[in-house]
């Protein structure tokens, strides 16, 4: 970040590996979401098999898939070029809404 622009080499890539670091941050975040989703499914299926438990399980899985989908799309965008575009607010909001919905599910299951 020194203000000196790198000499155009044969491969145009960021020497700071910013897109790669951001991609790995998305991977870490999906991993966290997976852990939270596994705990959610465990909570949902903890009691005897019931309709409410099955519905809770399905909703948590759907939220996890939604998160995964956002992360996958963003990772594909990041991998597409040497100068990836900035994150779109709608994707950020979708990821956050999946997280919030998971917490609401948790509150319903716990209480």
């Amino acid at each position, binding site marked *: *970040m020194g203000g000196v622009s790198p000499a155009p080499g044969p491969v145009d890539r960021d020497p700071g590996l910013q897109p790669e670091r951001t991609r790995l*941050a998305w991977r*870490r975040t999906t991993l966290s979401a997976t852990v939270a989703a596994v705990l959610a499914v465990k909570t949902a299926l903890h009691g005897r098999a019931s309709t409410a438990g099955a519905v809770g399980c399905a909703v948590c899985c759907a939220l996890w898939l939604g998160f995964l989908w956002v992360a996958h799309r963003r990772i594909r965008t990041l991998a597409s070029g040497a*100068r990836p575009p900035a994150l779109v607010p709608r994707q*950020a909001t979708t990821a956050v809404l999946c*997280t919030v919905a998971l917490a609401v599910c948790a509150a319903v299951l716990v209480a």
Partner: protein
Amino acid sequence: MSDFVRNVRLWFAPEQVRDEGGTPDYRFSLANERTFLAWLRTALALIGGGFAVDQFLPDLRWAWRVGLALALLGAGVLCSLRAVNHWVRCERAIRRGEDLPASRFPALLSLVVAIVAVAMVVVVLVGWAG
């Protein structure tokens, strides 16, 4: 308050963020995105902690267990909403070339986590004795 409503509108409107100021160095945007993801991981960890309290402390009295779990879940929700809000504000500040927004939230969150941790210690000790 109207400022907050305007921010919420920005969460869903990518064109409006792009309208303001100039396009910054893409590395700044990516760094901002990584900060957002780090906050989101914190939120997910809090939510996972809420599930864990409910699952792995079955001997606690119901009120304590549900109270602790709901406190952690509430902190997770606040943390994730604040993550996207702070991301939008930073993105706009970067585009306009302004200072980054200052925030009281990290101090608030660490206080809440400390209180919950002390409560856990008390609960575990009381559970042991009783």
